Structure formats: structure tokens, C-alpha cells
């Protein structure tokens, strides 16, 4: 899986637009400003996934990409457990950090993930003219590696490496650190690249 510099730049720009829209929705929900990193592209061999994501406890809201390509990959709202508690505390008006996560937290996380991922995919659909719809969300609050590994095992392609586009979204005021991670399957990635290349040619 090799991408040229131009292709990487184009995908980064796409990620930038998607993440900016997601960041805006997060900022509105928190009533506070949210900073965004430059989107990163990682090509990870599955045997080395542990170096990318380890045993740390995290909440992950995962969506399968549907729409123009039926099983197009996954998009994930990733947030460390500590940040997840801060996020739901902020939303629910609570302050206790040392508490188990309950159903209220879970529905809040699903809702936040849903809103952010929808904003991300709406923005990319508008840009590309290619629709990626999110499936209903699924939540795991457990070891990050275990959740990510399960999504990779569920890909329709039997892959040895995955491509992860990740953008970090940070709310300094509430010390909330999260990521949006796009893990497209090969056919989705090819489609996105073709569309981006056509756009660049026509401008």
C-alpha cells in the first residue's frame, strides 16, 4: 500500500476538512474551544498494531462506512477513558472523576461520536460527491488494542496492514483529548484517491 506525496497531501486535506467540521460540533457540545492537529497518515502492519495502540483503556465509538461502497471500512471516535469521563462530566454537569462509567456515560459517548462522525462524513461527501454513510454506532470501553483488533478482523478484506488517518481533537479547557480515526478498506481508499486526483486536475 503505497501513496505518493501528492496523494498523501490530498487525503490530508480531506481529513482536515472532515475533522474541522467534527471539531466544530464538539466545540458546540462543550461550549468551549477545540484545537485540531494536522491529520496524520499511518500505514500499520497488523503485527505491530500494539505500537500504535496498546493496553490503555479507551472509549471507542465505531461506525462501519456504508453508502456508495457497502462495506467501506470503519470510522472511529477514540477517546482515552480519563478524557471520556471528563467529557461526559462536562456534558452532564458532574465533577466526580473516580467513578465507574454507567449507561448515561455510554449514551452520551454514542451521541457525541454520532454527531462528530456525521459532521466528518457530511463534509467529505460534499467535497468528493461520494457518499459514505455511518452505520449505527457501536461502543467499546476497554483496552484500545482489543477494540481496534476486532474491527480489523471484521474487515471484508483479509489484510496484513491497515491505513489509518487520524486527527487529534483537544479541548484544553476541559483537558479532553480525542481522535477521529478513519480506516478505509482498499476499495474505498482507491475511490477516494481517484476522486481527489480528478478534482485536482479540474482546478
Amino acid at each position, binding site marked *: 500500500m503505497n501513496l505518493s506525496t501528492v496523494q498523501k497531501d490530498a487525503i490530508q486535506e480531506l481529513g482536515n476538512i472532515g475533522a474541522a467540521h467534527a471539531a466544530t460540533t464538539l466545540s458546540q457540545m462543550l461550549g468551549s474551544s477545540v484545537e485540531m492537529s494536522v491529520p496524520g497518515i499511518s500505514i500499520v502492519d497488523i503485527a505491530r498494531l500494539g505500537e500504535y495502540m496498546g493496553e490503555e483503556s479507551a472509549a471507542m465509538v465505531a461506525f462501519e462506512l456504508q453508502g456508495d461502497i457497502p462495506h467501506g471500512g470503519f470510522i472511529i471516535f477514540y477517546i482515552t477513558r480519563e478524557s471520556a469521563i471528563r467529557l461526559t462530566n462536562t456534558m452532564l454537569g458532574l465533577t466526580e472523576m473516580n467513578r465507574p462509567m454507567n449507561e448515561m456515560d455510554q449514551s452520551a459517548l454514542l451521541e457525541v461520536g454520532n454527531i462528530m462522525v456525521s459532521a466528518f462524513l457530511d463534509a467529505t461527501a460534499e467535497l468528493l460527491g461520494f457518499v459514505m454513510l455511518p452505520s449505527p454506532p457501536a461502543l467499546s470501553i476497554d483496552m*484500545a488494542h482489543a*477494540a481496534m483488533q476486532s474491527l480489523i478482523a471484521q474487515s471484508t478484506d483479509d489484510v496484513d496492514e491497515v491505513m489509518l488517518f487520524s486527527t487529534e481533537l483537544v479541548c484544553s479547557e476541559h483537558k479532553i483529548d480525542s481522535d477521529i480515526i478513519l480506516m478505509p478498506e482498499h476499495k474505498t481508499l482507491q475511490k477516494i484517491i481517484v476522486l481527489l486526483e480528478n478534482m485536482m486536475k479540474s482546478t
Partner: protein
Amino acid sequence: MSDPAGVNAQMAMIGIGEYRVGSFQMVTIGLGSCIGLTLYDDRLRVGAMVHIMLPDSAGRKDRPGKYADTAIPLLLQELGALGCKNRNIVAKMAGGASMFEYFGANLNIGERNAEKVREFLLTEHIKLAAEDTGGKVGRSVTFLPAHEGKVSVRRADGTIRDI
């Protein structure tokens, strides 16, 4: 926690689709639907560990540790080369969870992985001494062939249990 193996002991981290054979400490982290399978020969005090991701290789040969159907015969062959007899080998496994309920309902890979491993162990006449599988929980596994083949399973909440 004290480390009976000592600070200088060798330790192998086994990633998805990888396997190792020997008497050193072996570790797999963050098993979701994957299976961490250990095979141990008490007479020769050697063992093998593999991190299986999928039940069937569908003919693929390049990463035998990734699939239940190719991993088990390969590990037995490697242990056999060290002088292990199948009748002295004891298996333990952990993992096979369904981390995401919504997706899990459609396609329970964790359960299929565990089922395939059980089936292959039975075919090869290997005793499955213990397993910690299923549920909606991530697991990390530490295997110590030099300490009677001890297998410890750790969960995200920090609890550790020997199986």
C-alpha cells in the same frame, strides 16, 4: 508485582499473526476477537504461543500464525522438531471476545475463532486444559514456559487471573 523470571530474562511480545516457540516469557496484549493460544510440554518445559486473528486461511500461506487452521499444525510441527509429543502437550487459550455489540451480532468472529481452535485441538488430540474466552472484554496474556507453563490473563480493569 514481583517478576520471578528476573530482569534479565528474555521476553517476546507476540503481535497479531505472530508466534514464538521456546522456554522464555511470551506476551500478547489487547486480545479482542483474536485468540492467544499457548501449547506447553511439561516434560521438556518448552512451549509455543500464537496470536490468531481469523478462523480460516482460505489457502493463504504467508502468515500461518494469523489463522487457526494453519497456526495449530505449524506450532505442533515446531514443538515436534524440539522433541515434544502431542500426548504431552497441553493447550490453553484466551480471547475470542465480541468487543462491539452491534457488529458482534452480525458476525461473531471471536466465537468462530474459539470454535475453530477447539476443533483443531480435538483433531490433533491435544488437551485443552483451560480457556478464558467470550464476553465483551479485552484480555492480555502472559505465558511462562519456565514456570510450569503458567498462563495469566489480565483485563482492562487490572484484574489478573491464572488459567
